[in-house]
């Protein structure tokens, strides 16, 4: 039988569709092995009391965004340009849109 171009295209798409479906199988397999690593990381975080992911080590407020004081990105003066490239990948300080955890309203003394 003569090979038709539609057949060749179907075969090509079938291969890629199989690869597409294989990514799900691969994800499931790697999740099983990854669970062990994740568990080890969870333990390390618990043991050392770590608070942040080590993604950007260039500045203290990008290394520990959850611990940085709200002014740290504008440490030189309020309108200072951001120094570090990863600053553009981090959101602006939350005090521009929201405050600290709203505990101050519940306190008797001013914060």
């Amino acid at each position, binding site marked *: 039988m003569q090979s*038709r*171009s*539609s*057949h060749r*295209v179907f075969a*090509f*798409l079938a291969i*890629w*569709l199989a*690869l*597409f479906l294989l*990514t799900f199988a*691969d*994800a499931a397999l*790697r*999740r099983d092995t*990854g669970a062990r*690593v*994740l568990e*080890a*990381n*969870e*333990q*390390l*975080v*618990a*043991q*050392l*009391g*770590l*608070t*942040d*992911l*080590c*993604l*950007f*080590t*260039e500045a203290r407020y990008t*290394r*520990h*965004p*959850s*611990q940085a*004081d709200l*002014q740290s990105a504008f440490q030189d003066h309020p309108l200072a340009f951001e120094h*570090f*490239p*990863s600053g*553009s*990948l*981090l*959101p602006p300080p*939350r005090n521009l849109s929201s405050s*600290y*955890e709203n*505990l*101050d309203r*519940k*306190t008797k003394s001013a*914060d």
Partner: protein
Amino acid sequence: MKIWIERQKALIDFTLSSLARRKLKNLGLLLVYTVIVFLLASVMLYTHALRHEAAQVLKNSPEVIVQRMVAGRHDLIPLGYLEKLGRIRGVQNKEGRLWGYFYDNVVSANYTLMAPSPESHGFGRIADGKIVIGAAVARERGLVPGNLISFRSYTGKLFVFTVAAVLPHEAELVSADLLLLSETDFRAFFDIPAGYYNDIALSVANPQEVRNIASKISETLPDARIILREEVLRTYESIFNWREGIVLVLLSGSILAFAIFAWEKASGLSAEEKREIGILKAIGWETGDVLKMKFWEGALVSLTAFLLGYVAAYFHVFHFSAALFEPVLKGWSVLYPRFELVPVVDGFQIATLFFFTVFPYTVATIVPIWRAAITDPDAVMRG
């Protein structure tokens, strides 16, 4: 049914030979289309997996962290605060944490130094003069256990440590730049007097009471800044949303350029294509057949681009550690963690990507053809 299938196969054969006539243009389109899907899928897979990993790993971070603020900046917290916190009902464990940053001139990298509490299970007690280092530090400085490493502290004194162990490579996402040392060494290195800590980590007996306890703390210690675990998790959630958003904004230029290109290609019929439709109609093709042929053209191109782009993105993110994103994420950092994300694939996200990449192109191919196909063949051929 068999006739219908044969008919579709014939239409696809015809479509393919029609595409092959403009090989270069169509291959170019397929390449650009694939790259766009690849970039979108890479960003989507990477941020989703990282967000999942952050939530999973940081769920064990301290429940409450108390920092002392002086003139709007994080300051050392005295032992007295620890005692005051201990008197608050519901506080189960309290622990002064010692950690700080050190800039290493040798490799121009920032390290996070930490003195784990002696109760930290699994680490035992780090002896004075010993140091446990993160895998990225070991890689950057070429260190193995037993090596000596020296740092000049901020006071100008030289400190020499023996590398006791290297933290596992798998834990780089949380520990790449860590240096763990004993409390005595830490205090001597940073010249922090006894009785002072960087902050205090608390655990709470009843997790439901965290907020109440936090408000009690802010009443007792008005100069304290309280960071709850849920805030840490929320911070990471917002970082990844922001990052995904930023990358998509950067990509939006190229996506728009592609959209214009694809729309132009799909909707603006060339004179040659118009003539082709005219001839097909003149030799007896029905409008429905012309539409079906063009549907197949759009579907085949977009489906191929989706499959190629998505599979490439999956391998890029989960098998090659998203190597193309590294320069962007790395910024000016010297230490960058090498980690392999655990694949977490969200079916809904893939369905959305599929819908927004395959569907518009297919529709954009059909509509102008439909307009050309319902007009008189003679008029179409004359242009």
